[in-house]
């Protein structure tokens, strides 16, 4: 029963008084590799194609390592919790053993078409270490034990570094952040240049088809209709029950892709391009200039008839939406103007999300309440995490000029 499952999902929030807290039985806090997780229910719908889609449960996690390993760890750590949640799904094994649970979970895994990470390769362990370094430095400065008036910034920085290194558990500070690792970097580089080379060779051949395709898109755009008016207030209220609790918010939304081959193919190509950009250009500290997103994913479901977009972002929905309108409307349009009801776009990138009020209503209307939202560092924004890393890197620098700006970060 969907309503029973809803109760299970909200049990953590009920028990702790913090809306969105995960069911205690899952013990998500004990997993050392889990940054964010969420669970939500997609209600049963009839798609525009006539297809009946039953209600479904979605679990999403942003982890260090692989999805497969995460699921294995989750099952090993909290089998009862996994049963309590996923036991409401059709086909979940009766009287399960760990291997059955894991097989079932893995067979229900969906890969995102595109996946954004604020800083690729920064593990939870690194984040926690660097946050600890930052607060330790703060405490040392506050104590006055190292810093004396009249000292020059380079000397103060050296003194702070020395004081930190004298304490146990900070020997890693002298090392560079590990990053995504050599294997990943080599693979990414090959992927980047391989794809660019292929495009360069095939480019001249693709120009004409691409131009024709754009004209086709423009043609179907002329018959687009957009949703109008404000979203239903009870829906807004339900979504908001789980919003603005900590520094971060979950954004979860689902929509149908417009019917017809042109839209389907355009969506697929746009997502592929987005995936490429996330992998090669956005993985340092921003998504096309937006610095408030920790993770984001675009997941086609129902054989590409629908798309889920989900992100973990800092601040409120209002600030998040304004960031997108002012900095990234072309990118939003490229993907989401292929969705049913989206504000009308022109030539795939113009208009659309630039229509402030229509766009904000559209997003709210397509949001899905997220009754479970877990964050391993609920008080820290992505920009905060970047600062922790910058402090860790900067403490080892030898040049005098960087010492004063470094001290100003404390």
């Amino acid at each position, binding site marked *: 029963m969907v309503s029973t499952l809803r109760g299970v999902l909200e049990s953590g929030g009920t028990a702790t008084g913090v809306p969105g807290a995960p069911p205690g039985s899952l013990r998500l806090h004990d997993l050392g590799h889990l940054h964010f997780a969420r669970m939500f229910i997609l209600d049963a719908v009839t798609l525009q194609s006539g297809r009946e889609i039953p209600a479904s449960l979605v679990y999403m996690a942003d982890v260090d390592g692989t999805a497969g390993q995460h699921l294995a760890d989750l099952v090993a750590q909290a089998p009862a919790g996994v049963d309590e949640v996923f036991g409401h799904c059709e086909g979940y094994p009766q009287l399960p053993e760990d291997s059955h649970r894991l097989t079932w979970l893995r067979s229900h895994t969906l890969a995102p078409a595109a996946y954004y990470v604020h800083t690729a390769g920064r593990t939870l362990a690194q984040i926690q270490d660097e946050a600890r370094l*930052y607060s330790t430095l703060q405490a040392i*400065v*506050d104590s006055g034990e190292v*810093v004396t*008036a*009249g*000292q*020059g*910034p380079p000397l*103060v920085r050296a003194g702070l570094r020395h004081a930190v290194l004298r304490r146990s558990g900070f020997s890693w500070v002298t090392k560079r952040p590990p990053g995504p690792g050599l294997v990943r970097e080599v693979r990414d580089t090959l992927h980047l240049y391989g794809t660019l080379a292929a495009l360069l060779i095939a480019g001249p051949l693709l120009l004409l088809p691409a131009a024709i395709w754009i004209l086709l898109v423009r043609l179907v755009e002329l018959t687009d209709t957009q949703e109008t*008016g*404000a979203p239903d*207030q009870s829906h*807004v*209220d339900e979504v*908001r*029950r789980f*919003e*603005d*609790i900590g*520094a971060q918010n979950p954004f979860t939304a689902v929509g149908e892709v417009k019917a017809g081959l042109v839209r389907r193919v355009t969506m697929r190509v746009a997502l592929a391009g987005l995936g490429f950009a996330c992998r090669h250009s956005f993985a340092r500290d921003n998504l096309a*200039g937006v*610095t408030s997103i920790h993770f984001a994913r675009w997941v086609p479901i129902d054989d590409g008839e629908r798309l889920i977009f989900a992100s973990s972002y*800092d*601040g*409120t929905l*209002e*600030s998040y939406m*304004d960031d997108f*309108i*002012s*900095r990234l409307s072309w990118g939003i349009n490229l993907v989401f103007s292929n969705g049913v009801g989206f504000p009308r776009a022109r030539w795939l990138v113009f208009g659309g999300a*630039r*229509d*402030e*009020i229509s766009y904000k209503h559209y997003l709210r209307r397509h949001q899905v309440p997220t009754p479970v939202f877990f964050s391993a560092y609920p*008080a*820290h*924004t992505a*920009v*905060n995490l970047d*600062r922790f890393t910058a402090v860790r890197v900067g403490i080892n620098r030898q040049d005098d000029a960087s010492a*004063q*700006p470094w*001290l*100003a970060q*404390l």
Partner: protein
Amino acid sequence: MSDSLDLDDLQGLIARGYGKLPAASYLLLHVEDEGPARRLLNGLLNAGSVTTAAQPRPPRAMNMAFTAAGVLALTESATMPAGFAEPYATGMVTGHRSRLLGDLGANDPDGWHWGGPHTSPVHVAVLLYAADEAAMDGWRGSLVADFDAHGLRLLAALATSPLSNREPFGFRDGISQPILAGLPAPDREGDIVRDGEFVLGYTNEYNQRTERPLLPADDDPHGILPRDPDGSGCADLGRNGSYLVFRQLDQDVEGFHAYLDDAARVGGQVDEARREHLAATIVGRWRGTGAPLTLAPEHDDDALAAANGFGYAELDAQGLRCPIAAHIRRANPRDSLPPEPGTPASREVNRRHRLLRRGRAYAYQDPENGPPQRGLHFQCLNTNLARQYEFVQHSWVNDPSFAGLIGVEDPLVGPRLHGPSSFLVPGSPVRRRYDGLPQFVTVRGGGYFFLPGIRALRFLTSTTGLT
């Protein structure tokens, strides 16, 4: 699609704060008997008592605004017409909005003097301005008697202190104000912002008209309302109106001074220079002249009194002069935020989050001989409550992560939801931390109001059964 402001149809408060009328009083009313109430308000309108923006120096002034509950009560309607801003239609007091605005703990609406869940709903705010307290007294007295005789019950008559340019903590206030592009600009520095950010029905900083209530033409058979300038044929209930945010903010003046003195005490003596510097870093301007720390980092400077033509990016990107957490830097970060601090792109983002402030300070003696209560009747006008007022309140003023900060609250107005706060004052070679900042400002009442255009006011006081 730019068009010029119809000053005859704008209530005067949008154009000016009535600086020449030092006495102000705010009446909060509850509609008990809607028929007589409509007739009375409509009569005031027809008598020309409601001041418009076309009257540059009125001898006295009256403006009026309605909560959503007030619109429903006055017009005997069951539901609000579509197109009102969602925060307005659902009100300032909801569980979610209290989280968003920081109305928790000591600010909890449960304890509000007005506008909270345990006090009679506020329906109408009548804002009065007069040359002096004597003129105000007689006028207010006769109005209140009239209201009372016509089904408008007085919930509160909020008094204000005689207008000055200082707020109760002693700082110069109201220095930085956005300037409406469509109003004749007085000779002062400031951001010119498009009319639609403050007046409904005009082009805003997104080059669009902000959402507003548009009614089917049939709902306005006598053509009282202006028509939608975009040609839909709809009657434009929003045009020439604005949203008024009204919050009563108690200021703990003694607590603030005591904190500053304690923090600046060196060997039993208060170091005045240090105290004033601390005060200046909390606000971002020197208490004496209002000179901004960004331009006058070392000491107060008469030559820079109330100076406002500055940015943060070039002179003070790191917050070494004016801390990033300082109150005025949070409330108006100017050119200091992404995408590119110091550029027009950054200022463009900033212009989408401006507030036209109209509040006044108050001071009164507690009836039970308590300490004198001082504070600010904070008022601001804007057209998109979510993008302007609520955004500034949540994401700039109250956010401990504002602009990359790590757990630093607004030292002046922040709610201390996790106990006393601490504040970092820039210094060399490192900043100095001040601990134990208590809450200095407490919310005692509040509401979102619709300040209609004159024609919309006529419509609302002569119509029943909105849909």
